[in-house]
């Protein structure tokens, strides 16, 4: 591997999480090298719809990290624009807001309970009556029983965002190398990280960040410090471009349960939003714990039904494509961010499930805070590596 001499930190994985960690570390003066076996933003990050949500997090650590990230993204964007100059940090930031919609009598109570708890935790949320909701989203179903508006929900474009983060890293002297697979870690005599093995070569460094997304579990196992991160499949339908159809992210109030739920069987909830080009994205499904890519028409059928339930007019719209990805998922649905006590110098930043785009800004910040010994942006405790839910026994 010519050209790669050494670095303070090697980040493994150039998805949005690896890119955010690398950017934050480089901003703190750390010399960072990012490697990816594929190309930047080529894996899960390319599947992300780009929502930066506070509305779908239950109060607690998940919401705290989400709120911190929602605050951090606009600041980070300003910093990137300043550093890179005009036109180089266009990531489609759109604070468009979200509507959470109940369409049955039974769903009213749980939605009210969720919004009350979120409000108590400081989230901006407004209850809407059906008329007001349909004023905001004219094509919304008439069968509304309750609607909550979250003005702070936002969206960005994951691939350009990753590109901008990596551009900032390069601007500060960091490097990004595509097509380089991390195969293991070189440890010193005390068992601490001394480098990353990439085939026959090794890149000397004093710390490694495992940002391998849904493959993070596999990588951690390879190096003998396993964390429980498994792929959880999601499919999205994309319609032909439509003139202004839906302005906000609109989703069914059952969504929060779907995200938090177990993986014994496939789970669905209706999630509908537009992109800048006018296509409508329709989600979401959650299933499985493996990288099985086979198409299941039944999954598409469930997605279609859910979306038509929210927006009956969508029934006549052509679907151009379906695509999928694998969310990096932990058993307790919280990311893993921090140093691994089992191997000094090994850090993990992964397990963001269906929220890695939104959570990237605060994740990078938190990791850099912990690395440099600064005051952390949020309490790192709930995300620590050695919590019993995620730290597995080596070789088990």
């Amino acid at each position, binding site marked *: 591997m010519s050209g790669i001499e050494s670095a303070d930190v090697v980040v493994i994985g150039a998805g949005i999480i690896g890119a955010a960690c690398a950017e934050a570390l480089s901003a703190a003066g750390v010399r960072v090298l990012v490697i990816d076996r594929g190309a930047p*933003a080529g894996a899960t990050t390319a599947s992300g719809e780009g929502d930066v949500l506070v509305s779908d997090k239950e109060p607690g650590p998940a919401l705290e990290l989400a709120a911190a990230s929602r605050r951090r993204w606009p600041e980070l964007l300003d910093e990137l624009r300043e550093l890179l100059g005009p036109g180089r940090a266009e990531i489609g930031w759109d604070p468009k807001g979200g509507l959470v919609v109940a369409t049955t009598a039974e769903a009213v109570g749980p939605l009210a309970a969720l919004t009350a708890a979120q409000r108590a935790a400081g989230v901006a949320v407004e209850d809407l009556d059906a008329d007001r909701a349909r004023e905001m989203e004219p094509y919304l179903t008439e069968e509304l029983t309750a609607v909550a508006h979250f003005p702070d929900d936002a969206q960005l474009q994951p691939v350009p965002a990753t590109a901008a983060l990596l551009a900032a890293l390069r601007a500060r002297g960091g490097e990004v190398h595509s*097509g380089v697979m991390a195969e293991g870690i070189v440890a010193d005599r005390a068992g601490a990280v001394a480098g990353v093995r990439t085939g026959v070569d090794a890149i000397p460094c004093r710390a490694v960040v495992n940002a391998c997304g849904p493959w993070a579990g596999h990588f951690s196992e390879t190096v003998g410090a396993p964390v429980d991160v498994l792929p959880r499949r999601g499919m999205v339908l994309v319609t032909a471009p439509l003139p202004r159809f839906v302005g906000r992210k609109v989703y069914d109030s059952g969504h929060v349960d779907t995200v938090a739920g177990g993986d014994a069987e496939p789970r669905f909830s209706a999630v509908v939003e537009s992109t800048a080009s006018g296509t409508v994205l329709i989600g979401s499904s959650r299933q499985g714990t493996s990288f099985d890519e086979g198409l299941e028409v039944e999954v598409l059928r469930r997605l279609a039904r859910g979306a038509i339930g929210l927006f009956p007019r969508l029934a006549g719209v052509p679907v151009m*494509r379906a695509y999928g990805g694998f969310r990096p998922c932990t058993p307790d649905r919280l990311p893993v961010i921090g140093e691994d006590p089992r191997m000094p110098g090994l850090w993990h930043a992964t397990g963001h499930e269906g929220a890695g785009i939104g959570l990237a800004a605060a994740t990078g910040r938190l990791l850099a805070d912990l690395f440099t010994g600064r005051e952390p942006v949020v309490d790192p405790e709930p995300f620590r590596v050695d919590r019993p839910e995620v730290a597995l026994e080596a070789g088990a």
Partner: protein
Amino acid sequence: MRRVVVVGAGPAGTAAARAAASFGVEVVLIDAAPTPGGRHRWDARGAGARAELPDEVEHLPESAVWAIEPVPGGHRVHVRTGPVDGPERTGRAIEARALVLATGAHDRALPFPGWDLPGVCTAGAARAMARDQGIAVGERVIVAGTGPFLLSAAVSLVEAGARVTAIFEAGDPVPGFITRPGGALAGWTKAGELARYAATLARHDVPLCRRSAVIAAFGKDRVEAVLAARLDRDWRPVPHSLRRFEVDAVAVGFGFTPQLELAVAARCDLEDGFVAVNAAQATSVPGVFAAGDLTGVGGADLAAAEGAVAGAAAAKLLGARVRAPIGAMRRVRAGRRFAAALAEAYPLRPGWREWLREDTPVCRCEEVAYGAFRRAVEELDVGDARVLELATGAGLGLCQGRICGRSVAELAGLPETADAFARRPIAAPVRLGELAEDVPVDEGP
């Protein structure tokens, strides 16, 4: 599931259906078009005989296969039947032990300044309109691109009443290649096709200019004129060789792009951008066969021969007693030699990139300009098709990269360019309401 499903009723698919049915197995032949014949159906000679189907074949016209799913012991084929724009398409799923994919190829257009103007179309589209409806795409037309099929497009245009100003052949095939007795075209032109084309074109004073191309088109609301240039070996325009022609249509064809979506969805292995098959037309996936342009482009006769082999192999898989289709297999071998020679004689050269200008759209649906495209690619070290789309916008529009995909993948330097844009689990547009419906599943005999 003692049944064969054939997708595509071109020369390959109809031959496959006929062969399988002749061995007594149940055959369903599905095609999006209202009548069988495929891209070749407009050919006056032989098309009638080819397109006739025996009664034992159940033909589903106007039926688009939009997805294929593996099921135990075979595949489930999802179909919508009815006019594409009509509200009343019906859906069903058909299960089959053996599947023959014969979805063909469409001809490829390369981007050049003005290629998005009305009046610029593919040679295949021009030929289809002329043969199908007797309508020429324009009064004064230039045919440009590479490969012998340009001649047949030009003939169709002439026969439909157009004046073909010239044919610009970008390549410089070995002299004599086309006419050499026993040469590569020998297996193909036995019907005298080529001689007839040459005679027709000579009679109408249509010049064939080698190593030349249309490198720009101009016009307000549609094409009014084009610039043609001599090309060097690499297809870079030769300085001071530009000539201007007043025309109202341009038909372009730079080789073919196979319609791979269903084959990729079924996870068939590819080779050089086409579906890989063995001597029995079997793909890498058990129970899935492929034939015709999908496996390599060699014209209608080769497609039909491959179809006959595939149909027999599919019937055999179902347990029918099948005589080895020796004649068809021999024709396949000869045809393949021709197809290989064709691919070798008419390669695409990288110099076409120099026809592009900063503001030339590389993707017509999303109007992505070449300059912006290149900057986005450099910014992100783009490494695969999905990222390419998201970083540049190219391929995200209505055609889903079917037109521009291969070219933008090449411009971005992606490693796998032929199938980069073929990962489309939904192979044909379906409406969301259709997707939501429960459909009957026909498990067959």
